[in-house]
């Protein structure tokens, strides 16, 4: 790629990075259109965080070209820093300051000016539901509140390109939904977002496009719909009381895979109520009683199985990540 269209906010071409002998990124090429969300989906150790750290000027790539909003990451890092906002995996807040002071510090460092800075701080406290806790020290903040403050600090200068590294990891379900809504609202305001996640549903919910990263390589890329069409979909697991029932059921449903040890029959299903009702009716008519059933929706593991033919493996390989610092 020799010319970069103006409408492409993030472009990487053949980005490589090794730590010692370990190849973390292997010729990663990405393009994120302005005003869209790209989800970088992958397990721990896939190289997601390394990619974000390179694009946000924290560490240099070994090779490849990277441009953010037209600024070259290598030759114009300050140009990049002026237009990006980064919320990393580890909270980047000042624990000895209050929420308001943290935001004010960002406003001062972004040179917003006295009045505009104060207005922006108040605005963000309101927007992120932190007004009541504004003057409390961070030691009293919950995990969700810290994450919201962290993101608010990133947004002080209204960055045009935002990197969110696993924005919901470690959050409770309610805080996770709040964070999703915040990210959706951001996308409405025409900023470009690159977010990393280990959760297929998160990528599905938020992203315009998904790039699947596995052991430093992009193994699949497309819209959530395109990607999901490549996944065999979910299945229903039927649990039986005895082997005879399992045997009868598997004769009735030839597409299903029986598991004799666990007395379970795994039936492909798309998870809709109609298909489930059809399945249960069929079993009922054949007088096969099912002890219980569980519904399984596609997850990251299914994506990986679909696009690489192997299940998520990076985690099990013993990455040379330093103690306490997950490499992803």
């Amino acid at each position, binding site marked *: 790629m020799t010319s970069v269209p103006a409408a492409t906010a993030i472009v990487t071409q053949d980005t490589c990075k090794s730590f010692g002998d370990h190849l973390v990124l292997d010729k990663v090429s990405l393009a994120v259109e302005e005003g869209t969300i790209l989800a970088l989906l992958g397990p721990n150790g896939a190289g997601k965080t390394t990619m974000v750290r390179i694009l946000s000027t924290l560490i240099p790539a070994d090779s490849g070209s990277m441009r953010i909003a037209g600024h070259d990451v290598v030759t114009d890092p300050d140009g990049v820093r002026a237009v990006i906002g980064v919320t990393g995996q580890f909270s980047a*807040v000042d624990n000895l300051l209050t929420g308001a002071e943290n935001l004010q510090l960002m406003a001062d460092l972004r040179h917003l000016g006295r009045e505009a800075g104060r207005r922006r701080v108040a605005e963000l406290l309101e927007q992120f539901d932190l007004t009541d806790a504004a003057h409390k020290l961070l030691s009293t903040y919950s995990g969700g509140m810290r994450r919201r403050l962290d993101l608010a600090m990133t947004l002080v200068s209204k960055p045009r390109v935002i990197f969110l590294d696993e924005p919901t990891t470690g959050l409770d379900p309610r805080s996770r939904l709040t964070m999703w809504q915040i990210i959706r609202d951001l996308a409405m305001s025409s900023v470009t977002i690159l977010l990393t996640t280990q959760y297929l549903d998160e990528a599905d919910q938020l992203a315009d496009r998904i790039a699947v990263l596995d052991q430093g390589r992009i193994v699949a890329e497309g819209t959530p719909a395109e990607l999901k069409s490549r996944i065999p979909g979910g299945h229903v697991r039927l649990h039986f009381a005895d082997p005879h029932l399992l045997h009868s059921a598997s004769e009735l449903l030839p597409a299903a895979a029986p598991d004799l040890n666990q007395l379970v029959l795994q039936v492909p299903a798309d998870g809709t109520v109609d298909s489930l009702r059809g399945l249960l009716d069929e079993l009922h008519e054949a007088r096969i009683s099912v002890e219980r059933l569980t519904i399984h929706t596609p997850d990251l593991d299914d994506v990986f199985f679909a696009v690489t033919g192997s299940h998520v493996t990076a985690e099990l390989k013993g990455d040379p990540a330093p103690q306490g610092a997950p*490499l992803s």
Partner: protein
Amino acid sequence: MTTLAYTLSDSRAMLRRNLKHQLRYPSMTVMLIGIPIVLLLLFVYVFGGQLGAGLGAHEGRSAYLDYVVPGLLLITVASAVQGTSIMVAMDMTGGIIDRFRTMAIARASVLTGHVLGSMIQILVAIAVLIGVAFGLGFRSAAGPLHWLAAIGILVLFAFALIWLAVALGLAAKSVETASNTPMILFLLLFLSSGFVATATMPTGLRQFAEYQPITPVADTVRGLLTGTEIGDHAIAAIAWSICIAVVAYLWAIRLYNRRRAAEPH
């Protein structure tokens, strides 16, 4: 705004942050100011009677108080820069430094915030120690100019040690290391003219004590405050301070700019 204006504005923001940290983390601030005062009481009331007897013509506990105040002013500086080292290491091991690094702010402002904050802390601690010393009976014949010169020498030396502490804090892999390394300064203080005259030491030690940087600083401050002989100690004190400051500054900036490319996190 120009680059210089940005640098000043960023440094001011970082200084404000540093001063807030000192207020929010009072146990450390109080300890760093308190240790020199406890040592002052210890040296004057426990050791002072005996040590003062060896001072020559003008002897006794109160004479030792006059002798030891410059040494404790330097202990104050060493104690405060230990705090600098800890604060810098805490910053570098925390997540917020990565945020600063992804922002278009003056690169050095994180460090200058620490340096200016420590300097203010040291001036306050020195004022407190001098106040306590006066309360205990310290008497100085020095006029305002001599006081100013003494404070100037201390500030210059403190500036050098702060940058050294910043570099040590940056070089430390953990906050624990950062709090231990500056201990070497305390050892150097005891192996100087800060607490006893170098003439009373055995030959090898005496030579070391006379040629290490703390002795000229202590002797210069003592001379300015109590009228003892200064000689060429003032020149040596200034030269040492500038040398340490320049080397430590360059080392600190290099450590700070070094991207942690080898660390996969």
